[in-house]
Each structure stands twice: as structure tokens, then as C-alpha cells.
């Protein structure tokens, strides 16, 4: 009778202890595998490491992974609290851009994640700086570093004034790796409330009409308009691409009352909407 209770307990202890040993003995898994280092910033006893897929910042949507290293022990912090503020310095003023909060990456111990959507950059990729605030063990730290943001070859982000006299920023997130198929299209839509605040816009609709200007400006079938998904605050729709090449994704932004705020229909006379994103593959 007693054995029945004790045995599982013993086994549990054994297994648990074994696995802990394993973790400690083997080399820790590389949690940034497949990512390239964009920038390393030393701030006293800490080093901030910024990673993404391409190893550089570009205009448009940037998914960023962050690690925070304790230089004294050469280990990474696992319970820091981070926030950031990108700033573009213009000749007469400065502004920020849409960004997410920084959260711990799913299933990772040392990696934090977030995104920043740079809507513009200077020709020489200068102009942007990034301020990072973080808290470790109740201590607050802050640093500011200039960063380079390269101009992406296509228009993957649009910053525009709409008919409601508000400025919006629309960024292409998916498809990252498009194929000749019906691709899931994902965009982020933000309103420029002021120079530093860019809240998510909810419950609008974005009409989609992909065209190929290099091939008679033809479209493709079975696209759907993008609608808001309240789970992750992005907009989703179906984008069908019938061949590789350069596609212009003509868009029309409509508010929840279906009033068109920006963009026009593509017709024989009007070969593109004033609101569009671009895609090449």
C-alpha cells in the first residue's frame, strides 16, 4: 500500500533530478539560432544584443529578438523588464514609429521579442536612435544608441494622410516568403496620434487588389479584403499570386462605417491606387 505511493514519488524525484543534471551538463541550446546580430550595445555591466533574420534594420516591419547579458558572469538575464523608444531626428522635429511592447519570447529563457515599424529613413540610413529602458532586480537602467535603418527595396510600409485628416501607417508583415499560391496576407495598421504615439487601429477594412504592372496590370482571382483580428491586433486576408515577379498590392482603407479613407479602385484609366504596398519574389 505504501509502496504504491512511494514508488511514483521516487521515480518522479529521479526523473526530475536527472533532467536537471542534463540541462546543466550539456551546452545550453542556442536560443538565437538562425538569427543574425544587428547590434551589440554595451552599457556598464550589461550588454544588449539585438537580433533579427537579416542582421540589419530596414524600413517596414522588423521583428527583433533581444538578449541582455550580465558582463560580470557572462550569463543572460531571464527576468528583465524591457521597453524601447525609437526616435527619428528630423531637421526641425523628431518623431517615433509604431512598435510593440517587449515580451519574453515563447519557449525561450533568455530571449525577449518585439517589433518596430520604421516608416522611413534617410538616404544614408542615418537618423534613427533607439532608447532602451530595462529593469533588472529592481534596478532601472537606460541607454540610447544611434542605429542604422536601411531603405528596403520595395514599399513595404505606407505612411499617409487619410481623408479623416489623420495620419496612418500601414506595414506589410506577411507573406515573408511568398509563393505562387493563395498566401496569407498580414498587415499592421496604426494611427499617428501624435509624434510619439501610434496606437493600433481596430475594426477597419482594407480592400485588396494585387496587380502586375509589368504584365498588363493584370490581377489575380480569389483575393479577400483584410479584416481586423482582435487576438493579435493585425489585419488578415487572402492574397493570391499567380506568378513570381513584382506585384503591386493596391489597397483601399475603409473605416468601420465603410467610408473610404484612402485609396481608389484600379480601373482601365486608373492603373494604381494611391495606397499600395509592393512585393517581389
Amino acid at each position, binding site marked *: 500500500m505504501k509502496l504504491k505511493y512511494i514508488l511514483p514519488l521516487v521515480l518522479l524525484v529521479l526523473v526530475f533530478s536527472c533532467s536537471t543534471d542534463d540541462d546543466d551538463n550539456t551546452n545550453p541550446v542556442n536560443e538565437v539560432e538562425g538569427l543574425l546580430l544587428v547590434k551589440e550595445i554595451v552599457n556598464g555591466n550589461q550588454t544588449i544584443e539585438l537580433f533579427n533574420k537579416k542582421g540589419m534594420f530596414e524600413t517596414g516591419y522588423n521583428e527583433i529578438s533581444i538578449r541582455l547579458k550580465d558582463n560580470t558572469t557572462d550569463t543572460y538575464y531571464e527576468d528583465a523588464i524591457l521597453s524601447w523608444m525609437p526616435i527619428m531626428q528630423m531637421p526641425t522635429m523628431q518623431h517615433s514609429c509604431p512598435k510593440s511592447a517587449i515580451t519574453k519570447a515563447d519557449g525561450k529563457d533568455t530571449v525577449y521579442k518585439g517589433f518596430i515599424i520604421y516608416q522611413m529613413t534617410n538616404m544614408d540610413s542615418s537618423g534613427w536612435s533607439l532608447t532602451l529602458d530595462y529593469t533588472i532586480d529592481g534596478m532601472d537602467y537606460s541607454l540610447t544608441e544611434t542605429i542604422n535603418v536601411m531603405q528596403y527595396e520595395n514599399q513595404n510600409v505606407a505612411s499617409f494622410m487619410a481623408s479623416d485628416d489623420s495620419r496612418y501607417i500601414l506595414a506589410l508583415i506577411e507573406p515573408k516568403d511568398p*509563393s*505562387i*499560391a*493563395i498566401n496569407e496576407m498580414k498587415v499592421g495598421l496604426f494611427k499617428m496620434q501624435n509624434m510619439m504615439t501610434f496606437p493600433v487601429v481596430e475594426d477597419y477594412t482594407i480592400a485588396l487588389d494585387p496587380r*502586375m*504592372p*509589368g*504584365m*498588363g496590370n*493584370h*490581377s*489575380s*482571382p*480569389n483575393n479577400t479584403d483584410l479584416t481586423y483580428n482582435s487576438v493579435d491586433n493585425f489585419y488578415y486576408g487572402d492574397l*493570391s499570386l*499567380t*506568378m*513570381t*515577379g*513584382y506585384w503591386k498590392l493596391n489597397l483601399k482603407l475603409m473605416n468601420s462605417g465603410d467610408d473610404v479613407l484612402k485609396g481608389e479602385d484600379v480601373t482601365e484609366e486608373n492603373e494604381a491606387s494611391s495606397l499600395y504596398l509592393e512585393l*517581389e*519574389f
Partner: protein
Amino acid sequence: MKKLITIMLCILFSSLGFSQEKKNEQKKDTTKLEEVVIKTRRKLSSYRQEKTLSSIDDYLEKSNNVTMIKRGNYAWEPTINNMVSDRLVVTIDGMQIFGACTDKMDPITSYVDVSNLEKVTVGSGQEGTENGHCVGGGIDLQLPTSKFNESGLKTSADLGYETNGNFIATGLDLEYSGQKFFISADGIFRKSENYDAGNNLEVLYSQFRKYNISLQSGYKISENHSVDANIIYDRATDVGYPALPMDVSLAEALITSFTHNYNPEDKALKTLETKLYFNTITHIMDDTKRPDVPIRMDMPGWSDTFGFYSKADVLKGQHHFTFNLNGFYNKSLAEMTMFSNNPNEPDMFMYTWPDIRTLYSGIFVKDDWHFADGKSLSSSVRLGYHTNRIAKEVGVESLQIFHPNIDDQQSRFLMSLASSYNIKKEDSNIAFGLGYGERAPSVSEGYGFFLFNSFDNYDYIGNPNLKNEKALEANFNFSKTYDKFKIGLESSYFYIMDYIIGDIAQNVSSMTIGANGVRVYTALDNASIFDVYVNSSYTISDRFSVNGTVGYNYGRGSNSENLPLIRPFSYFAELNYNKPKFNASLQLDGNGNQSNYSSFYGENETASYAILNLNLGNAFYGEKGRTILKYGIENILDANYSTYADWNNIPRQGRNFYINISYVFP
């Protein structure tokens, strides 16, 4: 439907099958003038073959229910009973071979030349199913078999010239036949510049150049066993297609086979022939010669086929059985790259045939039962299993844009049944046949992706979910001879269910610049095709004879629209003069006005026409060899005309003087 099939199966098996061979076997040595030469030189011929160097296309066109669709001066597409190549099975000596062009610029008949072949067998409707499933009929281009007749070395040469298009053809044949060993080699070269339509109007991009070489060798292992191997290499370059927006820079085929023959004597099994084969085709379209194109593009295509068949002939009592077990594996791939006029934009690319693999295996059984004097019943059945697979994942995904619910694989069971009853009397012949057949969609119909059809100016999208196309068929033949007058009637009726044809996809914009829209292959509930031909001939004297043919065809779909490419009223008349070593014929060939044209499927009305041809032939026999001379004038009146089968109404050749010389070395 099921009932019908059951009934037909019952008819078939209760009678143990037959099928009066109404097959239009156009064998060699039927021409009076050529019979001496042809037999040894194994050239194709027919009583209406005017030129010894005519192409297979010219040759096939002489058959009543065969018409050639012309997109230019080369590589014509055969149709049987007004049905195009998707509904036919075209084989080379029983070998499956599939064109590599998505736009049908390379029918199989373009990859062989008359010098390769011994005869062509055309089977109308279900009588053409010996080598595969079809609805319209079958064409088998048959290679010569090895001859071990110890005739030694034979050589012959051909030379042809035609004024229109400055056409040159030249051929050389070598053949050695020993007791146990046989080898033959031949080569042919054809070249034409642009031809002129009537009134000396040059048809641009109608040039072509091609050569074809073949090598065949056989070895007799024992009295009953022999093997032979055959290689054909065919290469056409600089082929213009005036009816299409693109030309062809290369159409190349390598066709190989290895055959074992078993001919036991004094057994019920008469022959057993087993062949293994492989063929590969490369087809490259080209628009670099066209000065004005909206966009430059490359469109290469490839088609590789492996296969086998095993064919047995069994004679037992009054029955003649034919068995054919066959299988093949085909890989069809075609792609399109478009080069944007804006140099900053990347090239555009798509798979137009996304690597489609077809695996087929089937069996064919036929019984000719001669149960009474002059009476026979002939029945056949073919059963097969057909699988298509899309090998490229991107192909599945791209087709899913139009058809969300498709898998990468699709399998079908196919069946074909035919039976015909034939009564032969001294002065008359009556045959009546019934058939039921099914076919799988072709690669283009099933899996094509934005295939531009310049005929109706639409882009076509394949549909993997198409049902099998099924046809019920009835045919009737009758001929009677009254002394010097002979009259005959041939007629077929097809009721086709799930007739595959493109239907306009609303609100889908065409990919091709300037196209009207997009059609997706779908099926009409049913369609009917009817054709009837009346032939007659009259022997005026020993030297003079006349013959004539009139034909009527009809085709309509269940949507009450006319079907496209249905031949209008047609007529042909010929006056012949024959004496030993000389013949002459004056021909009148014409079509009525195409009033039942199909505007719905992009056709316009083609006006009536009539042309006159004069053909002459001489034969010279001498110690230094035999010479056959063929010469004449085609389209004597230089009419400027086009027929219903001319793609986009490109005009046909105007007046043309031709001369062919064939020389057989002694």
C-alpha cells in the same frame, strides 16, 4: 447510364466479341504508280498521295474524317471526327508519346517523318482504342518491321522542290537485309521559307527547317525469335507559327524502342510482340523574331515517357483474338518566364504544366469472329487505370488558387467498349457499330496554368477535378458497287457526356496582355457530334475515272452553342487518267460557307472556297535504277483562302509548282 454500360457489356461478352476492322488502314503500295517502288522503299502512300515526299500531315489529311488544324506551315494538329488531340490517342508503333508544348505546337505527328514509317492506322472512335483511351479515335504511326529476306543492300534517294516558299526536301535511305541481320538507316531534311498565300501575299513567320534521322536494326535469334531496336531523332529549328504570337526555336525528339518478336508456327498463338520504349521531347518557344510583342517571354517544355506493351495475336477457329497489355509513365513539365519591360522589375515566372506525372496501365482485348460467310462480329474492350500526380508542391498551390479542394494525386478507372457487325457481299458491304468510351483529361485540361489560347483569346486554367469524358457512339458504313459505279456512305454519331471545354471565369483578369479573360476547363453536360461522308467513283474507261466525296459535320453542346472546329459542308472531286508509267489527276477541293461557326468559343465565319490542283506522275524503269517523277500545280487559280481549321484564319498557300524525284539504285 449504368444500365447502358451493362447492356453493352452483355452484347460484348455474350457474342465473344468482334469488331469489323473498319480501321482505315492506309497501307503502302496502293498507288498504281508507286506500287513497285513503295514496297521496297516502304514509303507511305495512298491512292491520293500525290507527292512521294509529302509530309505525314499532308498524308493524313487525305483521310475522310481526319482534318489537320494549321497554325502555320509545319506541325499540323490532326483531328478525327472533329475532335482535337486531347480526345485522340496518337501513338508511334504503339508507343505513347506526348507533345511538350502547352499550346499544341508539336503534335506527335510532327516528330516522325514519312521515311520512318511503314503505314498509318487511323481508327475512328472506339475503334482507335488498341493503344489507349480516346473518344474521337486513334492514330498509330507504324514503324517498319525487320525483314530477313536476304535482299542485300538497297539504296534510294529523294529530292523535292516547291516554288511556293522555296521549299526543299531531300531524303536518303539505306537498307541491308541478310538472313539473320537487318539494318536500315534513313535521313530526311526539309526546309521552307515563308510561303505566299494567293495573290502573292507573303505569310510572315511561316518558315521551318527540320531534319529527321532514324536507325533500325534487327537480329534473328532463331526461327521463331527475333529482336529489333529503333532510334528516331527529329529536330526542327526556326519554325514559324504565323497564327500564333510565338515561334519555335527548337522542337527535338529522341524516340527509342527495343522489341522482341515471337512468331511460333502451327500454334494458335500467331505472334507475340513485346516492346520497351523511352522517348524524350524538348520544345522551346521563341519570340525573338517578332518585332512587336507586349512582353518577351521564354516558354520551354519537356515531356519524357517510358513504357511497354505486349501484344498477342491468337487465331482459334473462327475467332481472331488480339490482346494488348500496356503501361506508360509520363512526365510533363512546362514553364514560362516573362521579362518585364521595366528593367528594375524581376523576371516573372510560373509553371504552366507543374511537373505532371501520369501513370497508366491497361489491357485491351479484341475478337474478330467470322461466324458465317461474309459475316463477322468484331468486339473490343479496353480497361485501364490512370493516375496523375502533381510533382511540384508549387503546382498544387498554384492550382489551389482556382480550385481550393484539390489533392496532388488523382486516379481514374477508364473503360472502352466497341462492337460492330459487318456483312460483306460481292457487290456490297454493310457495317454497323456501337461503342462506349471514356478518357481522362489531358495534362493541359487537368493541370494547365494560364495557357494562352490565341484562337479565342483567353487564358486557360486546368481543372484536376474534371470527371472522365464519356462518349456513346454509333457508326454506320455502307458501300455498293454497280458495274462501273461505286457508292459508299460513312457516318458516325457521338453523344459525349461531361464534354470538357473551357468556361469563362467571371471577374478573373487575364494574365496574357490583351487577352479577353480567363476560361477554366469545365464540362458541358453533353455534346453531340455527327458526321457523314458520301463517296462515289465511276470508271469511265480503262484510262479515265472520276471520284468524288461530299461531307457534312455537325457539333453542338448542351448549352445550345455550336462546338468549335466543326468542319462545314465539304466536297472533293477528282478526274484521273492512268496508263502504265504515267498518271494525271485534276482535283477540285472545297468547303461550303461555315455558317454553324461557334462565336461563343471564339470562331468567326469562314467563307466558302474551292481550289483546283493538277498532279502528274511518271515512272521510268531502266538498267540503272528506277525513277519516279511526281510534279504538278497546287491551287492553280491562286485563290487566297483559309479554311475553318486554319488557326486565326491564316491564309493557305497560293499557287505552288512542285516536283519530286525518287531514285532507287539498282
